């Protein structure tokens, strides 16, 4: 009985913790094979299944973006590149591919309006959300650590004073950037146009007047949702309504 229990425990320990990981790895291999054989649509389907299984992985997003790009779906390619960018913002290949899609889409690039949004955007190009979080934490620990030393070791007060001041300033800096990014992303989440052409209307219904058009790969922010329509805002602050299914939030 005892030996049986040991065998069962050993078998249980040898099993992978999450059986879906094996499936995801297998799907990713199949997707890669399909891609190298030129069956890009199959590759898209397989990679998409991996993502739908809840895997949040930079390489998967990058490869899925590539597969979409090869099927000429610029919108969804950019969605996945931008998701990968959130995880590996300083990757040169990724930057190149994002620039390639942006150059090929119909809508011209528009500069962000607003200094806070520009700062948040600039930091996005260099730091992922978790890296900014980590930097915030490190400076927070630094500031708190020096504060504790300041309180407990009176002899080292000059050093700990400076240490806690520097830690505090850096913490305010990084936490402000993190806060700005969180507020902007939660209030106006980034989205990409995923259909060929979108008519941007004055109101949340097809009866309203079309103001302008956007095309696949157009980068927007979602300002408001109403039923099946979303109010979108362009970086230059132009606004209008589009059907929710025509865009995909990053």
């Amino acid at each position, binding site marked *: 009985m005892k030996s049986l229990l040991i065998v069962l425990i050993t078998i249980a320990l040898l099993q992978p913790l999450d059986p879906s990981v094996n499936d995801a790895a297998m799907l990713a291999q199949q997707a890669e094979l399909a891609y190298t054989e030129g069956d890009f649509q199959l590759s898209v389907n397989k990679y998409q299944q991996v993502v739908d299984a809840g895997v*949040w992985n930079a390489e998967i997003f990058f490869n899925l973006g590539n597969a979409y790009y*090869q099927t000429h779906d610029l919108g969804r390619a950019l969605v996945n590149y931008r998701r990968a960018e959130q*995880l590996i913002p300083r990757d040169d290949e990724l930057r190149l591919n994002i620039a390639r899609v942006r150059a090929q889409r119909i809508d011209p690039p528009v500069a962000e309006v607003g200094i806070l949004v520009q700062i948040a955007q600039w930091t996005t190009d260099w730091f992922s959300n978790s890296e900014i979080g980590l930097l915030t934490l490190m400076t927070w620990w630094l500031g708190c650590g020096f504060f*504790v030393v300041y309180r407990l070791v009176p002899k080292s007060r000059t050093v700990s004073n400076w240490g806690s001041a520097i830690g505090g300033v850096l913490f305010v800096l990084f936490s402000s950037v993190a806060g700005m990014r969180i507020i902007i992303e939660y209030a106006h989440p980034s989205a990409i146009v995923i259909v060929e052409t979108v008519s941007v209307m004055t109101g949340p219904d097809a009866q309203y007047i079309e*103001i302008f058009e956007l095309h696949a790969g157009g980068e927007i922010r979602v300002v408001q949702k109403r039923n099946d329509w979303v109010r979108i805002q362009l970086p230059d602050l132009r606004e209008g309504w589009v059907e929710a299914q025509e865009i995909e939030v990053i």
Partner: protein
Amino acid sequence: MIGKQDSIRNVFRLWLAISLLVLVGATLTYAQDVQGDVYVVASVDNLSPYVGQQIIYSFRLYDAIGLTNPLYQPSDFEGFWRVDIGVVSQTSEDINGRQYTVTTIATALYATQPGEQSIQPSSVVLPETVFRSKTSLTANSVLVQVQSLPEGQPPGFNGAVGQFTMNATLDRQSVSVGQPVTMSLTVNGTGNVEQLPPPIVPEGWRLTVNTGGYSSDLQNGLIVGSRDYQIVLFPANSGVQELPPITLNYFDPSAMAFRSVGTSPIEIDVLDSSGNSVEQPADTSEAFLKLKPIRDLNGSSTVLSISAFILLFFLPILGVGAAIGWQWTRKKRRDVQDRLRQQQALRVALTQIKRVELSDSRLGYEQMSHILQKYVADKLAVEFDNQNRVDILSLLTSYEASKSAIVKMNLLIQVIDEGLFAPTFKNNSLSSPDDISRLLTDVDNAWMQK
């Protein structure tokens, strides 16, 4: 006699009635004047426009008293796209024999949906003056019946309503394969130009349409808008390529018909890379993008999860709290020890004094001096540091001991110093340990009396 009195009474009543009538009449006239000094009226130039057709909403302020700084508060114009025009005229009118200055503020409106649309009232706020409190005058609302566009819309019609013209220029007539040609297109018109989608571009061409600037001008009371577009064309094949007309279909409300404006067909000479005008398909193949090797699907690509972040964020707060708590506990413990030390200072000193043999011994007085210094240190809960007389007295002063205690302490130090430095002086009446104990008790009591 009675009849005469009655007639006098009647005359008085008549006078009273006439006076009252005059007074009421004057008040009524005054009220009419006040009501008629300033008033506002709103109207539109077309009560049944088509969807997207420009109408002009006019808000007129009639002012007979020369207002200063009235503040216009326009309606929200729900159901309309609006372009503010501003003050379009300021005229003088004679109304019922009274001179009014009439200020007209205009807004161009474009109905966004068909049906009955009510334009909510606009108003004007008259600021507070010495003679009048802050007042708001609200105009009438205006009901507009917006008509749907008629059937038979041409293919590619995108909601343009009004009268439009179009101009186009190319930046070059000859270009190499893959090189861009930019067409500058300008659409002018009385319609909703600002909202106008880009015109229909020919299919089969690789091109991008960039929406450029918008400007507007007031002509004959209507907004005439101008929108620029830059159409960047990328010819894929060499040879003479004809760019078909770029058209804009619109509905002309004055003619109640759909019309069309467009550019003429344009020929572009597309050269191959060597500069020859030869029919040759261009290489349109796209780059084959390399995949990234997937390192670990198990591991998360995020450096830090949210739960870990929250945990790690609050840990230092706990650390700081623990440090402050520990410091506070240590201080409390020290305070208790200090209090105990202060309370037992006299008892300890008296016990030690009893053990000291004074006689003529210099050593005895040294011990006494030491005991006294320790007593002061215990009493003040400070570090014992071989204080001399001046130190002790200044310590007592700085710790705000009572004057009586300081005087008695001075006396005690003097006695001990005499024993220490002048042991042969026999007139010292306070040289026994009991005397010193008594004197120290006096000091302590004086301390307590503080």
